[in-house]
């Protein structure tokens, strides 16, 4: 029965400052210091294996000039932590970044993403405890500073190579624009003057300038073309989605990832079976993205390529209908069923948000945050331009349990949850069981002295012989608990593990993988 059954991984970049809000040129240095304070409970001394990385390959079929990253040993260690949960904590540019391990269920995607916040919080507390100057830090799970600078939240979807890239562009663009109504995390004011009003839905929308592009730092494209699958290139592509906000709400994260994954699955299936789809095409996706973010009435018409117009809710409903139709024909598992129900419920409530915001203000970040700010502003009689409103916005995303306002609302039972908090705690140290992240994370923890490096698609082991052994993890669906759990459990050393794997034909089940 169709389930999500796809590999998804998400990446969160964090904003960081000293307690005063300033940080300036120290941002990169402090970000490095921060991740180097990660307690030994969560990672060993393994390096990150850069051998396979190539972020300059473009999905449209060409290679872009640029320097591939190849740091020396010291720099590598200073910049990376290969985590026991199968993910990676590192510094990208000048921001701390957490890449969650590969997951196949929506629940895992949400809980491993939240585990990242907890890991960074552990770093934060350790940094402050050890800082000789007794300084404090603030770390934010958000995407803009209000001064025109943005940092990312990236989703990665493993897709069949058979789906042509132009079908992805045509099928996905209007979804990435319209999903903003349920997965924007909300923003007071504007970074680049695109917002119009005092509050907009998305942190990121203003920063997008072209419909399609490779860069993530300038001239950002709504559909990103990076083609770096970290797996078998001939079989898979990894779609890198960079339009999203970092959500705090578990519900919003699930809707963002789940809806996009289902749209992609329908695109794949419709291509495979030759069944045409009825997804809307926007005339000007970039203008539409800016407009959707600024329109809290959800009713301004958006121009379509066929000369007609639709509202953003009309577009979102069209996507939902297509997906629902597809899955009701094919059958669905409970997780897909739950998601479709939630997706439909949220769109229905958005239709009468003006009259009755209840429900949404417990589920969607932009609505939760807006209600909190409005309540505070009215009761404390603050002016529209009071800087405390912008501070409430920022502090909503503060990851520290004792000062983060989302964390406060959550503790008070003011927001809907998907997870049991213990599921998140488990994800700090244990990898997902059903992807290659299981193999990576478990090896790192079981053999901390012998696993010298890891990456998405490899684990490098020192088995005591003169040469290091690179174990390829070229298929993200393999190396699961089911297939290699017993071998890893039995092995008392990396050497024994290699012997066990060789007799089985490698962690991904083919003898070539071990060559």
């Amino acid at each position, binding site marked *: 029965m169709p389930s999500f059954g796809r590999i998804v991984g998400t990446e969160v970049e964090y904003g960081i400052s000293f307690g005063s*809000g300033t940080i300036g040129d120290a941002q990169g240095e402090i970000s490095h210091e921060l991740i180097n304070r990660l307690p030994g409970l969560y990672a060993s001394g393994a390096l990150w294996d850069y051998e396979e990385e190539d972020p300059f390959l473009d999905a449209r079929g060409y290679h872009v000039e640029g320097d591939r990253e190849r740091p020396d040993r010291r720099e590598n260690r200073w910049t990376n932590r290969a985590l026991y949960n199968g993910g990676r904590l590192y510094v990208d*540019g000048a921001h701390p970044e957490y890449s969650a391990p590969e997951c196949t269920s929506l629940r895992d995607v949400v809980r491993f993403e939240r585990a990242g916040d907890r890991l960074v919080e552990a770093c934060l507390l350790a940094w402050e405890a050890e800082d000789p100057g007794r300084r404090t830090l603030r770390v934010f799970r958000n995407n803009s500073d209000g001064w025109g600078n*943005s940092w990312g939240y990236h989703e990665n979807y493993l897709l069949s190579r058979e789906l042509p890239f132009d079908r992805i562009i045509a099928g996905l663009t209007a979804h990435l624009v319209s999903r903003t109504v349920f997965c924007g995390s909300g923003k007071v004011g504007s970074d680049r003057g695109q917002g119009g009003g005092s509050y907009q839905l998305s942190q990121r929308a203003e920063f997008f300038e072209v419909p399609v592009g490779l860069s*993530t730092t300038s001239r950002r494209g709504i559909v990103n073309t990076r083609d770096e699958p970290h797996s078998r290139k001939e079989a898979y592509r990894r779609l890198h989605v960079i339009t999203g906000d970092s959500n705090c709400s578990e519900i919003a994260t699930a809707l963002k990832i789940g809806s996009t994954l289902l749209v992609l699955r329908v695109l794949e299936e419709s291509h495979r079976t030759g069944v045409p789809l009825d997804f809307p095409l926007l005339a000007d996706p970039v203008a539409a993205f800016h407009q959707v973010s600024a329109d809290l009435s959800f009713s301004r018409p958006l121009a379509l390529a066929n000369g007609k117009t639709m509202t953003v809710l009309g577009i979102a409903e069209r996507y939902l209908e297509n997906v629902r139709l597809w899955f009701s024909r094919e059958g669905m598992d409970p997780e897909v069923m739950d998601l479709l129900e939630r997706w439909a419920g949220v769109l229905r409530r958005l239709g009468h948000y003006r009259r009755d915001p209840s429900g949404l203000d417990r589920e969607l970040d932009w609505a939760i945050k807006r209600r909190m700010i409005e309540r505070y502003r009215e009761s404390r009689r603050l002016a529209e331009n009071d*800087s405390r409103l912008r501070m409430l916005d920022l502090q909503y995303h503060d990851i520290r349990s004792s000062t983060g306002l989302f964390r406060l609302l959550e503790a008070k039972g003011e927001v809907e949850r998907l997870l049991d908090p213990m599921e998140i705690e488990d994800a700090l140290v244990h990898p997902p069981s059903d992807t290659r992240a299981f193999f990576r994370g478990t090896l790192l923890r079981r053999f901390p002295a012998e696993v010298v490096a890891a990456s998405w698609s490899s684990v490098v082991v020192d088995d005591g012989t003169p040469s290091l052994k690179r174990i390829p993890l070229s298929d993200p669906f393999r190396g699961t608990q089911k297939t290699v759990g017993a071998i890893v459990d039995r092995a008392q050393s990396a050497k024994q593990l290699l012997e066990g794997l060789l007799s089985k034909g490698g962690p991904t089940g083919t003898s070539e993988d071990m060559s």
Partner: protein
Amino acid sequence: MSQKEKETRKRDETEETAPEPEVPAGAQERAKKVAEEADDILDKIDEVLEKNAASFVKSFIQKGGE
């Protein structure tokens, strides 16, 4: 507060606000309780909200990322 305590606390609150018989007095009490809880949250926000908000939001300038 640990996650576990939070969980217990959340459960307690859910129990306390569970539906009561539909009598006007109960409804009034409930409305009062909701208002008190809202005040409680705003007070808690006051406790933790950055005191130097004006200078913080002015100084919070990040290098672009990704």
